[in-house]
């Protein structure tokens, strides 16, 4: 893929949090890029740094967090160093984000129409009347039933799926180049989830927006992704095309994740869970961060596993994995 079409390029992003005594690294040296019209999925369990990476990109880190190093390149700008007024212009206009809980992501005291229309007033400097017309158009585009009357309702009168559609309408109203979706369907039930995901793909086809989808649901990944990043303890442990990663996962963590998905219709006594738990960020092991829970270390183990943090080994066509065991395989 040519470098020109890369919409967003994250390079060596490291984000830390100040805690009482020392600083912990929540996101450790991650790099990735998304191209036009492409969907990148970031997967991993809770607390592995998925959301923090997204917040770092948007400049929304809580006061205790800060970006230690790295760059986020977007249209010749480094998002981490542009002024806050420039960032205001980009956010919502060129880069948008939707959140996990649609019920609490809308301003409770503003009518839906005004809220969606406001985006047009902020970024495209439209008049009130024009913006309301555009807002209606957006609500139609996200397939909200009876959009005319919905324009006049308040957020608490909407269901979760409806509210998420409104959020998507708002996020996509300026045809952004990049949409970051932080677990957009976690709070919704399964049927609504697939509707929302279909909607996102449909709009993406029309507008060629690049989507960064953060999720812990591998089913969603399989449905949506072009590329996948698997994160563990703040690091990328495996990346590659969705087909490669799903068909031939290389990193033991990815394999374990795939195995822990229950299969409908298959009777098992117990779900395959990954033994142990995620190491605390302030007590990370010296070597591979997954070493203690790794199932393959019983079969084969290298001295490096406990001693040194593995780099990402490039296997083939954009497929890479952070595992000492697999560097010899290829």
């Amino acid at each position, binding site marked *: 893929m040519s470098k020109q079409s890369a919409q967003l390029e994250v390079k060596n992003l490291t984000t830390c949090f100040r805690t009482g005594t020392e600083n912990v690294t929540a996101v450790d040296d991650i790099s990735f890029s998304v191209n036009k019209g492409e969907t990148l999925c970031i997967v991993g369990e809770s607390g592995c740094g998925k959301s923090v990476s997204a917040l770092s990109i948007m400049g929304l880190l809580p006061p205790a967090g800060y970006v230690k190093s790295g760059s986020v390149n977007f249209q010749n700008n480094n998002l981490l160093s542009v002024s806050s007024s420039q960032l205001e212009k980009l956010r919502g206009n060129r880069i948008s984000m*939707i959140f996990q809980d649609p019920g609490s992501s*809308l301003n409770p005291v503003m009518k839906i129409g005004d809220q969606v229309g406001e985006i047009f007033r902020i970024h495209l400097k439209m008049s009130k009347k024009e913006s309301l017309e555009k807002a209606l158009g957006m609500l139609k585009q996200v397939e909200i039933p009876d959009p005319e009357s919905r324009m006049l309702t308040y957020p608490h009168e909407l269901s979760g799926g409806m509210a998420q559609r409104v959020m998507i309408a708002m996020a996509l109203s300026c045809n952004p180049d990049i949409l*970051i979706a932080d677990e957009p369907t976690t709070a919704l039930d399964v049927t609504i989830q697939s509707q929302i995901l279909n909607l996102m793909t449909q709009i993406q086809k029309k507008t060629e927006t690049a989507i960064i989808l953060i999720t812990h649901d591998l089913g969603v990944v399989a449905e949506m992704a072009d590329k996948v990043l698997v994160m563990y303890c703040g690091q990328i442990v495996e990346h590659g095309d969705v087909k490669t990663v799903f068909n031939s996962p290389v990193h033991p963590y990815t394999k374990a994740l795939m195995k822990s998905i229950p299969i409908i219709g298959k009777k098992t006594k117990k779900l395959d869970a990954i033994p142990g738990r995620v190491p605390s960020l302030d007590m990370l092991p010296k070597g591979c961060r997954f070493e203690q829970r790794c199932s393959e270390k019983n079969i084969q183990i290298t001295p490096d596993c406990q001693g040194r943090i593995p780099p990402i080994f490039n296997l083939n066509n954009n497929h890479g994995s952070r595992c000492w065991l697999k560097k010899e395989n290829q």
Partner: protein
Amino acid sequence: MNKLGRVSENLSKNLDEDLLLQEPVSVWKRIYKRLMSRRSGKIGLFLIGFVFFIAVAAPIIAPYDPQQVLIGKEKVKKREAPCIHMLGCDISKPAHLMGIDGNFRDQYSRIIYGSRISLSIGFSTVSFAVIGGVLLGALAAFFGGWIDNIIMRIMDVILGFPSLLLAIAIVAVLGPGIRNALLAIAIVTLPAYARLTRASVLSVKELDFVKASITLGASPTRLLLSRILPNSLTPVVVLATLGIATAILDAAGLSFLGLGAQPPTPEWGTMLGSERNQVFSAPHLVFFPGIAIMITVLGFNLFGDGLRDALDPRLNN
């Protein structure tokens, strides 16, 4: 099985119809309904309405000009007891429902006109205090850091004084008068609003929709004015309603001490203060202003209580 199916079909049909029949209720209507469902809210609203009506209709209701000295115009004695024809007062005498005050004026008219002054004092003091307090509290919470520290420490200093004492001190410096009394009370009550707003803004600031607004490109000003403030004003509204009562009471207190409204202004506190030595010889001159203050303050207190219940979603019954 068949029967069961029919029942459930009927049920869902009814549900559908119910849903269709249910008209959307506006927020204001709902709040009003809940306010009226409580006795305190109802009585409070009635009392406030009553006082408001009197204030608005004062020129029509009042038989005399409140400042008109009746000496030489009618045959009245100084501090004469009320003369009500219905209760057996001599028809040849002119009616004075609440008697005559120490300066030969009709007490009834003065009480009626007093409602105007008390209400305007109550509302203007509270609006001043609310605007100032909300602004300072919101700035402190929104920006945090040293701005927060400076604003809130000043508020702490003001809160450190007993409120009426500080008000007296401010009036003593600025000079007595209704406007200065008003300013003094506003300054004294302002920190309460600042604190409340700050706490409220601090909690709203962390909510998801604020973050979502940032990602959609809202500027800090827009965030504060159209996102955070409207969502954190509910407690302020309640406190302000209760604050009107306190402000009226404080203003009456200052006027009683001779630091607020100056005679011959028909202010209830002033009327009370100037006739306080005649409690035993002419009780009607102290009784009626006192009752008027009580009714107004009670009205606002009850209304505030009712409003708090109506605006609190956790007390949903």
